[in-house]
């Protein structure tokens, strides 16, 4: 797997090989991950899939951004924008 870029809210975010979506977003200074369907704010917290606070929509499916490897061309959005 090599680096590349994915779309976050429609803007390109570059990532390195082996990096998660959460890590690439934080390196780009994107700390606010929007809101979930119920309006609660989402953001990176535990890094191990336990807190479920960093959920994002990845190509239309909800997943933990800390567990999901970044890959070229993914469309990543806040959960609210897709499922709200």
């Amino acid at each position, binding site marked *: 797997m090599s680096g590349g870029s994915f779309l976050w809210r429609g803007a390109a975010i570059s990532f390195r090989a*082996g990096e998660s979506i959460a890590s690439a977003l934080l390196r780009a*200074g994107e700390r606010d991950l929007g809101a979930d369907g119920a309006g609660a704010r989402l953001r990176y917290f535990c*890094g191990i899939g*336990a807190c479920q606070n960093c959920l994002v929509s990845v190509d239309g499916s909800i997943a933990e951004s800390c*567990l999901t490897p970044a890959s070229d061309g993914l469309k990543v959005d806040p959960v609210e924008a897709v499922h709200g």
Partner: protein
Amino acid sequence: MARPAEIVCDALVIGGGAAGVSAAVELARAGLRVELAEQRASLGGAYHRQPSGTTATTSARGRRQWLRLTAGLAHFAIAPRLRHVFLGVDTDGLGLLDDREAGRVRTVRARALVVATGAVERILPRPGWQLDGVMTAGGLQMLLKETGEAPPGEILVAGNGPLNIALAADLVRLGRPPVALVEAGDPAKNLGAALRIATFPGLIGEAARHLARTGFAGTPWLRGATVTAIERDGARLAVSIEDRRGGSRRIHGDMVALHDGIRPNDFGLPAVSIGEPIVVRAGDCREVLGIRGAEADGIAAAREVMALLSGTALHRVAPEVSRQRRAQALLAELFRPVREHDGLRHLPDETVLCRCEGRTVGELRAMLAGPDPIGLREVKLNGRFGMGVCQGRFCADAVGEIALAARPDLAAGPLSRDRWPVRPVSIAALAAPDESRGE
């Protein structure tokens, strides 16, 4: 009656850290058919996770351990199922794995389940801990391990325990010393415990190296101090810190890493397993013993599985496990908070308790002050505390503590932990196995 898409094995090991890999290798050595599932795209767990293409950050001892464990996997041809998230066991006793790569749920028929899902950090609630930019120390360490660098911005590390010192040292090594290291304990003054810890040479050497590195970088080490609030201040975070005499100060940063200890990540697991699949825990998921205890505990878990499968009882004894238990107890004593714990009575009402649904300390207190007798069950069902998607992993202990401090008469009982791990699963992924079975 095995269905086509079903995975059939003797033992399914959940979690590809040191304990899980150790258990898988030991089970395979005994001739069992083993499946190893890991939620991430690579094995390693919290400790052995490495940035791709950069120098390893663990000790030589750690690297040797990981080489030994992965050599075992290769020897017994155990191909780990990566990006497989464990969802639970269905009513037929089938394990459910969400294959995130393929986007479908796989069912596993196993006689035994070894749960090696590690630990979760204990994070005390504080005003502002829900803000973005505030994360757990372990969460920040994950980012460092993943990329070999820290995300941009100034970082403050706060809480309690040795992990914070390790994180601060890692940040220094990466050229990003934290603006402050706030520690509730005062390990520098706790000489008795420090001397006894010296009988665990690995531990004391590691801590000394971390501290020297942090000290030389000029990071203030504020001992006996606690973070009382985190507020947004423009684009930054303002952190209020109180020292042991009640004096306060504010330090600004862009990110705050919090950590107040760790506990087993055993949420959602049944207390006892009845019949098959037999459920056995390994490593930090069973008891927090750290990396040195994980490998030995994995082997002990595997032997327990074999004994249970052959219908014999086994008293689980492992000398290394007992030794690491003593080390953990000493560390807890060394880092004992200077100020006595007050049952979270100091928290202002507006403090968020439940991070998932934004429920506050004030809302819990109002519920407890009501005229009706209530128990933790009502706190959960009516107050929705511990009902969020994290299953109470980050609020259950605090909710229980506040509730019992306010109402000692309260009917005690676990606030959470009676459901299998809940994870986001798409309808498509759940439907997929049926299609592939051609049913």
